[in-house]
Every structure is written in C-alpha cells, then in structure tokens.
C-alpha cells in the first residue's frame, strides 16, 4: 500500500528570516506568493500510516475493507477494491464503522447489575469476576432444574458465532434460537422445496429481472446491490412489485404497487401464461424436474384475469411480463431476495417463484438463478460431551404451542395441517423458531427455561410482540448478554459482557457461498481500546471457570470430560486463534497469508461458478432427486405439494392499514442507529402514509401520530407521501429504543416490536411481519 505522505509545502526555508517568523508565526509562507502547484494537500497527521485489510461487520454482507490507520488511530475505512463479493464498494454503514471503536456509548468493561432489571444500575467488574459469576449461575441453574436445556442461547450470525456454540455445547443446552426465522426462513424453505437449496441471482448477467418485495437499492446485499445498477447488462429490464415506491422501484422500468401478499397470484398467472402458451423450457423441464403435469393442471385456473382481481395488476401486463420473462429465459431472474418474513404461507409464495424459474430453465446458468457455490474449509472434528441432563428442545411439541399465534383466518384452507410437527418445522434445529420457542418458554411447557444467554442479538427490538419477549425475560433467573453496545436486550440483563469490535479482533475464516464464492477472515485493524474480549476469549474464559465447578460435569462420563479438556479446551480455546484459522485453511497453501494481505481468498481467481447442477444425473436435495415442481415431502406432511393460492389476511375493520417493515441503506436492523454518522442521516423514523389517506385523517406531513395495533401503540412522525399504497403504512426498524445506552435514539421514534403481531408461518417457523393491521390517529 501507498505509505508515502506528500509533503511539498513549507518550501520557504528558514532563511527568510527569524524576524518575519516571529511576527507572523505559522503564516510565514504568506510572505511570498506560493508558486502554482506547491500547495500541500495533505490533511492527515504526520506519522505512521498503515493500510490493513479486513472485512466489515456492520451487517451480514462482510464486505472487504481496508482500514486506514494513522499513528495507531483509525482514520477511515476504505473499501477493498479487489474483493470479488463487495466489488470494491463500502456503504454508509461500512464507512460509519470507523466511529464504533471510539464511541462513548460502547461497552468497555463487564457490567454486573446492581439495581432492578432495567433500572440501569451497574457495577463494573473484572473479567475474572465475570467469568466466575457466569459459570456459577450456569452451575446453579443446572443444579436447580436438573436440565441443561433450562438455559437458552440466542445469537445471530457472525464470524464469532461458532465460538458461542462452543459455550452452548460445553454447557449442553439444546435450546438455541437464531435470527433466521425473523428473516429469511420462508425464503430458504420455499426455494429449497423446489431446488433443494437457496440460490443466488446473477443480476450481473440477467436480461430480465422481476423483484417482488425486495428493495435492493436500500436493503443492501453484496454483490446484488452493486450488480443491480453498476454491472447490469445494457438493456436489462427490471420489473419491481412492491406496495411501496422504494428506491428500487425508482430504478425499475415498471413499478407496480401490488396488493400485499398477492405476489403468489401474480406469479401463478405468469405460470399459467407460460405453460398454456408453451413458452416454458420443455427440455429443461423434462430433464431436471418432477411434477410438471400436476403443475400444469393446477395453474389452469390461475388466469391473468383472475390474478388481476387479486393483485390489482392489469391482466395484459401480467401476460406481457410472462411472455417477456420466458422470452429472455434462461437469462431471466425471478429474484429470491433475502428477508421474506412477510406473510402467512409465505413459503408457498417463494415456492411459486422457484417453480417459475424452474419451468423456464432459469437455473444454474449465466444470468439466471444460480445455486451457491462455496469453498470448503477444514473444520475441527470435535465431539462435545454427551450430557445426561439435556432434555429435548422446549418447543418440540410445536403443534400445540403455536395455536395462538396462527390466526384462524390463515389456518384455512388447511386447518390442522401444515403446522410444524417436528421441533421447528423444516429448518435446522439450531436455528429454532423465535415465536414458537418463546411460546414454549412462556408456557413452561414441557419444562421451565430460566437462563438466557444472548450474543449480539437484540430480541427486545427484533422479535415481534415485545410484551411477550419482556414476559419471557421476566421469567429468567439469569440473563447474560454479550454485546458491543448497551442494546435494549442488554439493558435488561443481569450481566453484560463487552465484546470487542470487529476492528480490534481476530475472527475465524468463513466461507461465504455464492456465485462468486469467497473465504474471508478478520484481523485487528487497530489495537483494542478497552477491556473487551471476543467470543473466542469469552467462551474460553467461562469454560475454564466451569471446569472448576465439579457439579457442572457430574452427568457425563469422566473419560468424556478428559477428551473435552484435551480436544476443546487445550487444543483450541487455549491456543492462539490464529492456529484455529490456519487449521481451517490447511487445504489451501498460501491462503492464510493472502487473507492477511488482502482480507479475502478465492480459488480460480474469483470467477463465477455456474452449472454444477446442470448435469444429467445430478441429485438435487429432494425426495425424487429432481427439481420438484410437485413436492413429495410436503405431500407426506399434509402440506400443499403444489403452491395453491392462499388468500391474504384482511383487515378486521375499515380504517385499518396493513403494517409493512423494511430498511434503509444507512442502518442494519436495530444495531446501528446510535452511530453518530448514521444517526445524523436519520434521527428518528416516521410512518409512511398515503397522501389521500392522510387527507382523510386530517394528518399533515411531519405531524406526530399514534399508530396502534392489537399488540401495542407507538407515537411517531407521519411521512405523507404518494410512495405507498393507500391500504398500507410503513416504518423502518431500529428506533424508539428502551435503553438509555443507545443515547441518540433512546425513546426517539417508534419501535416495531411494539406494534407487530407475532403471527407464525407454520411451515418454516418464520414470523410474518406484514400480517399486522394498525390504525393511525393524530397524536
């Protein structure tokens, strides 16, 4: 990297004279007119300048960054121009990351609660005390409930999360719950029901793109948000369907304010047109798919005229879009997107999308929807002890638990069926289902859960129906939160452990799947500023203290304990994390060094990977081994094997609006709003209300209103706009914080968790965030 500092100024020697110098001090150079081109442009302090490659952690994307460090202080985070995933970009959040280590609001030392929960009285303690305290509480909980699953562990994705699971598995609880069911579980489930996996879209080569409910211009995903405008091929057509005129809608060739939760009808009608007019890819369908005849039969009734009534998009337009889509196939994309925690039966919506891609052969080829490729890393083959006192997940018997969170209106037409009948529907057990899990904890059924650990997740703000979350927290004997800042969840903890920022820590290597697979890791850009630790160190610290308490190990074989001490503690946690990383990368000579230098590693020069599944005889992850247009497993479980159209929930009363949620490009969920550089872009959220409706309600732009659902009520500013359907309202997440530790956004704006009803998607266990109806009144 370029370390040279330009210093061409001060060309005036000392010879000009001490007298003038004494008179004019720093303005000495003014005595002579500076010749052109001699102005010194440098603005950085003189001294040592370093450029350190790492990766961002402001959201899930993990874009390549290069920290610009001047005399040990982080001046700026620059994008890594070479990173094939982030394509040399860095968004507002990524840039604002440079403020995080220096934030006065950051957690600097372990804090032990001294007052009542939520009162905000804390005592600073040492890490030693903290580790002892946590281990003792774990031992007490185990002793009291004789069930290791009585302690639940929540977390969200991130490079350090795997070390959190070292703690989880060392204690032996099966009750873990992750972010997935708040985000994209329906998407993964729906697409996987057809293709056996959740694919990416090749926006850089697609000629025709349909985006339904994805705002790629604001909810940034790399490389999609980059390719979306920067690398799109000339003439690419973009059709956007969204109840809001988003920034993505503003980029569209055509934007349709589709009636919420009728996307499925729109795509079914496209399928109707494509199949009835023989526009589908016959060869692909015959070679790779299963169940085309059943599909053909089902979509007969879904004419564009039928769909027009449902989704309020003219039948002729649907016909035209269907034909254009088929015409451009396979370089046509029906965009999977990311968050899909939208509506009940969302899985069927996503299944329908996937079927459209399948019948047109828009799969695993340039410009289509493409399965994620990945660069496999070497994992540490370790066995955690088998604990006697570990009970099955608390939400195992989901069918009985979730009756209350599946409204009767959406149980029809398949009442009694489709409810999850294993621990958490079809997603991985590790992910859990937040709503189902919380129901189980609240009901103490079949056993009490009384300990709660939370790593970088913020359920108080993130999980719909905060009243239930608060009740759940109240039940807990012990709450431990591992965080960078005093989040709303941390505010209610008994002990808060300060996690190092991503700019100060080593994070293990991760393989990020995609069309452009990549391996990334993190190295410290600056030295740690405070007494914080990473999850790797925290797990190690707690586990060491746990090992000092014999009662924590009385339900395992002594030989298991010895193996555990050797394989987990001595060989991994007690060693430098760099050893762990080197082991991960052991298959790839030079990868570690490249990661240190460039921040990322690719094989094959980072070229896109197409066609791995387009081989006769390739076995897709499905019952038939084919791309299932007709899902055999769903049939077994009593679900619709074909995505029959499901009616959306309707408002109970006139005057109710459907509440929608979404994101801006300058914030991630509930974690970044307090960053001064992002806060100044948006200091509070405001509720989008259609101009006509606002007029009816007598509400002016900028005026405060009360928004009320059956869950709760919030006060928020109105943003009166033409950019939203009259039957919907919308605001972004992450405001109206309960924690004074988020000083800038404490109580400013409205929280979503206070409004959104906890409606469950029964197949994926995902939450349905767009199934809440609200009223708006002047505040």
């Amino acid at each position, binding site marked *: 990297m370029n370390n040279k500092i330009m210093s061409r100024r001060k060309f005036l020697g000392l010879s000009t004279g001490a007298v003038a110098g004494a008179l004019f001090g720093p303005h000495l150079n003014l005595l002579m007119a500076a010749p052109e081109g001699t102005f010194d442009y440098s603005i950085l302090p003189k001294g040592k300048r370093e450029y350190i490659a790492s990766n961002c952690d402001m959201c899930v994307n993990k874009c390549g960054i290069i920290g610009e460090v001047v005399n040990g202080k982080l001046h700026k985070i620059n994008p890594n121009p070479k990173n094939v995933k982030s394509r040399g970009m860095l968004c507002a959040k990524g840039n604002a990351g440079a403020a995080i280590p220096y934030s006065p609001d950051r957690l600097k030392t372990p804090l032990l609660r001294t007052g009542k929960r939520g009162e905000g009285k804390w005592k600073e303690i040492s890490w030693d005390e903290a580790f002892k305290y946590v281990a003792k509480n774990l031992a007490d909980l185990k002793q009291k409930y004789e069930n290791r699953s009585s302690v639940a562990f929540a977390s969200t994705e991130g490079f350090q999360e795997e070390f959190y699971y070292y703690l989880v598995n060392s204690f032996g609880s099966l009750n873990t719950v992750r972010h997935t069911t708040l985000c994209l579980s329906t998407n993964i489930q729906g697409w996987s029901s057809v293709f056996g996996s959740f694919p990416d879209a090749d926006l850089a080569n697609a000629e025709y793109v349909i985006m339904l409910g994805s705002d790629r211009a604001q909810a940034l995903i790399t490389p999609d*948000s980059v390719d979306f405008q920067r690398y799109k091929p000339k003439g690419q057509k973009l059709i956007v369907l969204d109840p809001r005129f988003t920034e993505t809608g503003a980029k569209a060739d055509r934007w349709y304010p589709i009636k919420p939760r009728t996307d499925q009808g729109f795509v079914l009608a496209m399928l109707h047109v494509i199949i009835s007019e023989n526009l589908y890819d016959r060869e692909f369908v015959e070679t790779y798919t299963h169940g085309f005849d059943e599909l053909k039969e089902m979509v007969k009734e879904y004419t564009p005229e039928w769909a027009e009534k449902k989704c309020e998009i003219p039948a002729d337009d649907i016909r035209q879009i269907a034909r254009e889509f088929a015409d451009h196939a396979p370089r046509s994309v029906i965009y999977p997107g990311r968050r899909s925690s939208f509506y009940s039966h969302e899985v069927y919506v996503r299944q329908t999308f996937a079927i459209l891609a399948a019948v047109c052969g828009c799969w695993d080829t340039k410009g289509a929807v493409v399965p994620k490729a990945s660069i496999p890393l070497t994992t540490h083959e370790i066995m955690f002890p088998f604990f006697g006192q570990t009970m099955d997940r608390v939400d195992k018997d989901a069918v009985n638990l979730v009756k209350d969170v599946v409204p009767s209106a959406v149980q029809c037409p398949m009442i009694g069926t489709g409810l999850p009948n294993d621990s958490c529907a079809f997603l991985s057990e590790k992910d859990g289902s937040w709503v189902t899990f919380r129901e189980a904890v609240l009901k103490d059924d079949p056993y009490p859960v009384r300990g709660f650990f939370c790593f970088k997740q913020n359920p108080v703000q993130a999980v719909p129906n905060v009243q239930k979350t608060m009740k759940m927290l109240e039940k807990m004997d012990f709450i431990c939160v591992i965080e960078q800042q005093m989040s709303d969840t941390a505010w209610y903890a008994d002990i808060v452990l300060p996690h190092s920022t991503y700019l100060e820590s080593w994070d293990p290597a991760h393989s990020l799947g995609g069309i452009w697979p990549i391996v990334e890791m993190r190295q410290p850009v600056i030295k740690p500023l405070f007494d914080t630790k990473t999850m790797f160190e925290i797990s190690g610290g707690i586990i060491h203290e746990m090992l000092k308490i014999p009662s924590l190990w009385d339900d395992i074989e002594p030989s298991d304990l010895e193996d555990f001490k050797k394989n987990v503690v001595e060989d991994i946690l007690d060693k430098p994390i760099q050893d762990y990383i080197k082991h991960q990368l052991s298959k790839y000579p030079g990868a570690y060094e490249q990661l240190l230098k460039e921040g990322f590693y690719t094989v094959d020069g980072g070229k896109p990977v197409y066609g791995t599944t387009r081989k006769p005889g390739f076995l897709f992850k499905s019952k038939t081994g084919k791309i299932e247009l007709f899902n055999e497993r769903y049939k077994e479980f009593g679900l619709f094997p074909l995505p029959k159209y499901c009616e959306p929930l309707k408002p109970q009363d006139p005057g109710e609006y459907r509440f929608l949620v979404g994101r801006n490009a300058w914030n991630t969920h509930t974690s970044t709003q307090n960053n001064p550089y992002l806060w100044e872009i948006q200091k509070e959220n405001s509720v989008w209300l259609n101009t006509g409706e606002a007029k009816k309600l007598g509400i002016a732009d900028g005026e405060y209103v009360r928004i009320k659902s059956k869950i709760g009520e919030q006060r928020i500013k109105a943003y009166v706009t033409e950019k939203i359907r009259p039957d919907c309202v919308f605001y972004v997440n992450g405001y109206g914080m309960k924690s004074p530790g988020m000083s800038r956004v404490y109580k400013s704006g409205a929280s979503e968790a206070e409004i959104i009803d906890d409606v469950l998607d029964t197949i994926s266990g995902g939450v349905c965030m767009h199934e809440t109806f609200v009223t708006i009144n002047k505040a």
Partner: protein
Amino acid sequence: MEKKRYAIVLDTKKCLNCKACTVACKFENYVPVGDDTYRIWVTELPLQGKFPHLHQDFQPSQCQHCENTPCEKVCPTKATFKTPEGVVLVDYEKCILCKACMTACPYDARFVSEHHEAVEKCTFCMHRVSEGREPACVETCPVRVREFGDLNDPNSRVSRLLSSRPYMQLKPEKNTRPRLFYVL
C-alpha cells in the same frame, strides 16, 4: 505535457440514495457530525407523478469547482484559490471567516468548519488524488455514480463519458461553468 483539468462526471441514474458517499466524505475529511456540516449531499429530487405512476431521481452533489468561480472572486485574502488543475481549494490559514464565499456560492457548497476554523468544502480529495488515489466519494460508491478524472485526457473515464452521452450541469444560468457534469 498538457495541464490536467480535473472533473467529476455523475451518472445519477444509477444512484441508490444509499448515502455511502456522504459518510465516506465525513471520515476522509474530518467533517464533524452536524446538520450544517457536510461537503457533499444526496438530494432526493421531488417525486413526480401521482400514485401509482411515479418517478424519482436522486442527485448527489458537492462543490462544482466552477471555472468562473464566484467564491474565489469575492475572497478578500486569496484563501480560496484554484489549483492549476482547476480544483477550487481553501487555504484554511488564510481564511478570515468573512463568509462572503458562502454567500456567493450558488450551490450552497460551503460551510464553517470547526475543525479547520475556516470555511471549507469539497476538495476533490486532492490529498488522495496527489497520491494517485480516488476521491473518497468516488471510491466508496456501490454503483459508481461518480467518475473522477482529467478532461484533457481523451481516454479518461470522464472524457469518454462526456463524449458518449448527453449531459447537463447545475444552474447553467449562473454561467459558473462547473466541473461537475451530470450525464443523462
């Protein structure tokens, strides 16, 4: 060798309104957090049309580095000056904070900086450019709305953009001859 003539060409059709550039600029140039302290901005131009027929453009902008330079003309102490490449800069040590330049600027591109105790504005990141790097706003943009380069080099990206696409400039009626070009 011919002198360089630096310019920025913007293709705003691509702009996502993501504000990456504005935040990058603040860090790069020590611009403090504050509602009035910013060198660059991304304006959401007024929404056109009525629901459901809508259109909206986003317009990032900054100091126009005018060839006919209103701020430089009224600066009493030559604090504001032009480099040989046509970049308009402020020598903070010469600024007396009379704010005539702020009042003269038709683009509202200048503000009082507490960091420099002077009036400041976009510098085209000349401290980076002089090291062969791109301005921060150009570099960080996800979709590369801005291109920076030399108008006198016919092969530069800015020259090629301007020779291949129609463009406009802001407030042509002021006859300021900006070095910011918006391709259409």
